[in-house]
């Protein structure tokens, strides 16, 4: 079993956690999320080419012009793979970018006619996001209640705080790195919260178990450290498995799911980090100060009892 002193170095880790949080919040509020056409809307082109084209061919041109995140749709495909009629939804482009794109499409894929051109609004309304956030908040409340029953309120509150920490840090870092997000961000955040919840409970369970078996006078710091070291192998292996899987999705999954896998990747890394180096030290500080206060009171009482004798 490894013997790292996670708790002894808690000040360092709190500072690291705080710095990461500040950077993430800075990313979120100063830079903001780079929202894709799902949110912002964009432009749709309805094109009729003279020769049938495939979605992959159109995608190649769009990638070259840096609008690879556009939606491509073939209308009335006969063979299933090619069509003359193509719908393209791009982000809002400047006049010159549009001109470039139109010229490139023609030089690569042949002559075409613009049948329709429209500005579209985002399909993903802020109302939906608000409803989702509300649902997550109510679910968090349920988690807190469950953890209060199965653990206690200190585990419950530090656990949920660290879950929110993970979600906020992930969204903030996604904003900071500034890759474009589609509505995939919703399932990504839900996965991160779920992963984070699972991770918290597994580690808190070991602390809870060790608390039950605690020998008289064993310092809380030692006990917490031991619990974290006992679960360290598991924490690392599970995180590595998920990280490798997400890396595969990121590398091989193509442009349309990159935001999803990248966000989950960040979330899992910070989930593993915060279970060990944020949630557990936070829990320790709280419980330790309570224990110290209790010890002080009881020794004062003893002293009083002695003095009055």
């Amino acid at each position: 079993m490894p013997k790292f002193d996670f708790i002894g170095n808690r000040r360092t880790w709190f500072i690291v956690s705080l710095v990461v949080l500040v950077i993430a919040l800075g990313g979120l509020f100063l830079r903001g999320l780079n929202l894709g056409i799902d949110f912002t809307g964009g432009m749709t082109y309805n094109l009729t080419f003279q020769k049938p084209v495939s979605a992959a061919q159109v995608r190649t041109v769009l990638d070259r012009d840096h609008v690879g995140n556009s939606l491509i749709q073939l209308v009335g495909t006969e063979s299933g793979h090619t069509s003359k009629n193509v719908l393209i939804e791009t982000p809002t482009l400047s006049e010159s970018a549009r001109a470039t794109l139109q010229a490139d499409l023609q030089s690569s894929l042949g002559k075409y006619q613009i049948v329709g051109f429209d500005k579209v609004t985002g399909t993903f309304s802020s109302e939906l996001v608000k409803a989702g956030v509300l649902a997550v908040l109510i679910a968090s409340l349920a988690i807190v209640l469950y953890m209060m029953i199965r653990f206690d309120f200190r585990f419950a509150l530090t656990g949920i705080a660290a879950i929110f920490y993970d979600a906020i840090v992930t969204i903030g870092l996604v904003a900071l790195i500034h890759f474009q997000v589609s509505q995939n961000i919703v399932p990504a955040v839900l996965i991160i919260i779920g992963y984070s919840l699972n991770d918290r409970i597994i580690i808190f369970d070991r602390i809870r178990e060790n608390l039950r078996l605690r020998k008289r006078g064993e310092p809380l710091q030692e006990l917490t450290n031991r619990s974290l070291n006992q679960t360290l192998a598991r924490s690392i292996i599970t995180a590595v498995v998920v990280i490798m899987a997400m890396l595969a999705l990121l590398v091989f999954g193509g442009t349309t799911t990159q935001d999803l896998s990248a966000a989950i990747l960040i979330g899992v890394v910070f989930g593993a980090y915060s279970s060990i180096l944020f949630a557990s030290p936070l829990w320790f500080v709280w419980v330790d100060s309570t224990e110290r206060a209790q010890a002080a009171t009881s020794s004062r009482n003893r002293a009083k009892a002695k003095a009055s004798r």
Partner: protein
Amino acid sequence: MRGRRIVGLILIVVVVAAVYAYFTAVNPVTRYVKEGLDLKGGVHVVLQATKPATLADMKKAETIITYRANKFGISEPSIQLQGTNQIVVDMPGVKNQQQAIKMIGQTAQLIFKAPNGSVILTGKDLVSASATLDSTYGPIVNLQFNSEGTKLFAAATKKYLNQTISIYLDKNELTAPNVQSVITGGQAMINGGFANLTDAQNLANLLNSGALPIPMKIIEAQTVSPLLGADSVARSAIAILIAMLLIILIMIGIYRYAGLIADIALAIYLVLVVGALIAFGAVLTLPGIAGIILSAAIAVDANVIIFARIRDELRAGRTMGAAIDHGFKNALRAIMDSNVSTVIAAAVLYYFGSGEVRGFAVTLIIGVLASFVTAVGATRYLLRLSEDTPLVRNQKLFLG
């Protein structure tokens, strides 16, 4: 005894492999999984009430539109209220936008027909329909006609006594009750043929309004391409395969034989999840896949926790058999707490969430249950069956 266990083990592996071979090569399971609008593409329509609408009006309109969408033969339409005055209709797989919109917007016509096919009365003669639970007949629908309708209906029931009068909505026969007596009070009852009160309520709603209860306008109608884009579905599928292969290899790399057992359990997990999705007729969406990914991660984690505990027990000097028993026992509480809290959270998300979030919640609940059955149950059973193999004596090979 020893031989039998090993035979059992091999049998399970062969069956799992056969199931996979059958449902990928011979009879692809993708045929049975219903895909949502985001994965399959289709038509997305938003209707908005042009006048202030009550919730009851909107619910009624939702029922009518659901009826229409189903009538159109759409495999899995999703109709949802949005905000206070909008209805979102998603029709996965529908390509013909014009036809779909025409169908959604059309007015349903209620018609009572005589046995000879002549029209007796229509929806405009009906004042109201309501569903109740009758002590004799079960769920029934009560009809109330206006004065014109009362006269027509009295004449018709006299003329067609002991024959059937058919009730049509558009061209579909809804029900064909038998005329048991002459009805002069302008009231009629439809009994039989309802599975439950909701069923009767749905018909009442439909009868109440040949037309939508409030005027609605289509404010948005678009043919949606699959969210991933037709060209990236294949890439995503390959990426998922590579990710799964990586997980399988990592588990074997770290836990050797036990890792292989965990992989088999994971394979069974996937069969259970996909089977449950098909059995419940759940619609698979991208957030739904996210729920499966998360529960798969939870399943892998459960096995990692269990194996770590077994290693603890071995280090404490127990024999392999005892270590496996104690390892599972010790790991169970953590896994239970994690699974139960995840299911609770998912249930809350389902109850309070909208479409996107709900898709995630459904597959997460199914996935977590399946992961518990397989990562705890199946892994344990398979390890038990392996206790007689010579492998068990080589700890490095058995558990890494």
